[in-house]
C-alpha cells in the first residue's frame, strides 16, 4: 500500500511530539517521537508491557497525556491553541477530534443491548449527524462487506467471536475515520477464526486510504500489510523499518537494539 499524497493535508497524519506518559511512579512512555504518514499502515510490536496499548489509548483519548503533544491531521489532539500556548482541551474539542479516529478493541466491546445494525449506526447518527435511513443503508453495505448481511437483526451475544469482531470493524468503519486503531484484534479469537478477520483487515487496508496503527502478534499479517513496523521497548522506539527489512535482515548487526528486536522476533515466531 502506497502513501496517499492527494490529501489536502500533506504533513504526517499522526505525530507524537515528546510524548511522556506516566501511571503514578511508572513511566510507560518517555519522550516518544514518531510520525505516521496519511494512508500508511504501521504495525507496533514489542514485549508485553512495553506501552503499545498505551499509545493507542492515548490516540483514542482514553488516557490523558502526562507531557508532550499528539497531533492528528496537524491538529493537537487533546490540546487547544490559546494565546500561542497549548492548553488542555475541553470535551467539545475532544468530541471534534475523535471524529477522525476509530478503534477496534481486543474484546470487541459491542453494545449487548443493541442489535448488530444498531451498533453500527449509532456513531454515524449521533456523532456525524447522519439521518437514520442513510446510516442504515451504509450500515447494511458495511455488513455485507464484512460478510454478515444475514446478521443485521441478530444480537451480539448470538454471534461467534470472529463475527463479533467483524461487526466491530464495520462499526469503526461506519464512523468514516481517517485513522483506525487496532489493538490485538485477533487475540481473543479461536485460532480458526483469526484468518477471516485478518483477511478482512488486509482488504480494507488495501482498498481505503485510512491510516492504520496496529498492534498485533500475527507476524505474517504484519509483514503482509504493513508499510512500516516499529519495535518498542521500555517506552522507546528501538527499530523502525520496512517489514521485509525488519523480519529478514540477515546481517549480523552489532547494534544492541537490533539484537533485542531479533530476540523478540525469534520468541514470537517460534511460538507462532
Amino acid at each position, binding site marked *: 500500500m502506497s502513501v496517499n499524497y492527494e490529501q489536502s493535508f500533506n504533513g504526517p497524519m499522526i505525530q507524537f511530539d515528546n510524548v511522556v506518559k506516566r501511571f503514578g511512579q511508572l513511566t510507560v512512555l518517555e519522550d516518544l517521537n514518531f510520525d505516521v504518514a496519511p494512508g500508511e499502515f504501521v504495525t507496533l510490536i514489542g514485549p508485553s508491557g512495553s506501552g503499545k496499548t498505551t499509545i493507542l489509548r492515548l490516540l483514542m483519548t482514553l488516557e490523558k497525556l502526562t507531557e508532550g503533544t499528539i497531533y492528528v491531521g496537524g491538529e493537537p489532539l487533546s490540546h487547544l491553541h490559546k494565546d500561542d500556548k497549548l492548553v488542555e482541551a475541553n470535551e467539545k474539542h475532544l468530541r471534534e477530534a*475523535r471524529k477522525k*479516529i476509530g478503534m477496534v*478493541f481486543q474484546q470487541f*466491546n459491542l*453494545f449487548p443491548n443493541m442489535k448488530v445494525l444498531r451498533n453500527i449506526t449509532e*456513531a454515524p447518527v*449521533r456523532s456525524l449527524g447522519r439521518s437514520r435511513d442513510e446510516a442504515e443503508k451504509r450500515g447494511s453495505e458495511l455488513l455485507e462487506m464484512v460478510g454478515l448481511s444475514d446478521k443485521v437483526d441478530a444480537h451480539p451475544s448470538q454471534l461467534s467471536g470472529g463475527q463479533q469482531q467483524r461487526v466491530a470493524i464495520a462499526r469503526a468503519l461506519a*464512523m468514516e475515520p481517517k485513522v483506525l486503531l487496532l489493538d490485538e484484534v485477533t487475540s481473543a479469537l479461536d485460532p480458526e477464526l483469526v484468518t477471516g478477520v485478518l483477511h478482512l483487515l488486509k482488504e480494507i487496508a488495501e482498498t481505503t486510504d485510512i491510516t492504520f496503527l496496529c498492534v498485533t502478534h500475527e507476524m505474517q499479517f504484519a509483514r503482509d500489510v504493513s508499510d512500516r513496523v516499529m519495535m518498542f521497548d521500555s517506552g522507546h522506539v528501538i527499530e523502525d523499518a520496512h517489514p521485509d527489512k525488519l523480519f529478514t535482515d540477515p546481517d549480523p548487526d552489532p547494534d544492541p537494539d537490533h539484537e533485542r528486536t531479533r530476540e523478540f522476533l525469534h520468541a514470537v515466531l517460534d511460538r507462532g
Partner: protein
Amino acid sequence: MVWDRGAVSDSFPLLLAGLVVTLEITVLGSLLAYVLGLVFALIRRLRVPVLNQAVYLFVEFIRSTPLLVQVFVFFWVLQPAVGLPISAFASGVIVIGVHYACYTSEVYRAGIEAIPQGQWEAATALNLPRTRVWSGVILPQSVPRVVPALGNYTISMFKETPLLLAIGVQDLLNRAKEYGAETFSVTEAYTMAGAFFLVISYVASLLVRRLESRVGQL
C-alpha cells in the same frame, strides 16, 4: 379464646380496604424510590457540584435513622412547620419513597459500576455524546440487572408500611386495629392482617426470584 369464623368474614371488607391503601402506598412509594434513587445515583456518579455532596450527606443521614422517626419528624414537625397541608397518606408515600430512594440509589450505583470498562471506551471511541452514552449504552444495560433488587426493596417497603399507622394512615394494620377495638376480635383481625402480608409478600418474592434467574442469564 377461640377462633371466630364470623369475625373473619365480617372483617374481610374492612381489611381489604386497608390492604388497598397499603398497596397504593407501596406502589406510589416504589415509583418515587425508583425514580429518585436513579436521580441520586446519577448526581453522585456525575459528581454534580454541590448536589453531589448534598445527596451524599442526605443518603447517609436517612440510612442511619429509623424510618419511623423520619415519618414522625416529617408529619408532626416538618410538615406543620412549613405549613403545607399534606395528608397522612401523601406524607407516608413521600417519606417511604424518599427513604427507599436512599437504598435504591445504591442499587443503581452498583448496577452502573457493573458495566465493563470496555463499554465506556467503545462509546468514547465511537464519539457518542455523553447523554447518548447514558441513555443508549449504560442505563439500558444496568437497569434490567437491578430490577430484582428493586423488587426486593418494594417487598420490604410493603412490609414496612404499617409503621404509617403512627401518623394515622388507614392502612391494613390500622384497619385491623380498628376492627379489633370495635369488636374485640383482636386475634382474628391481627392474624388476618399478618396472613395478607404473608401471602402477598411470598408471591411477590417468588416473582422476584424468577426475575433474578432471568436476569442471571443476561
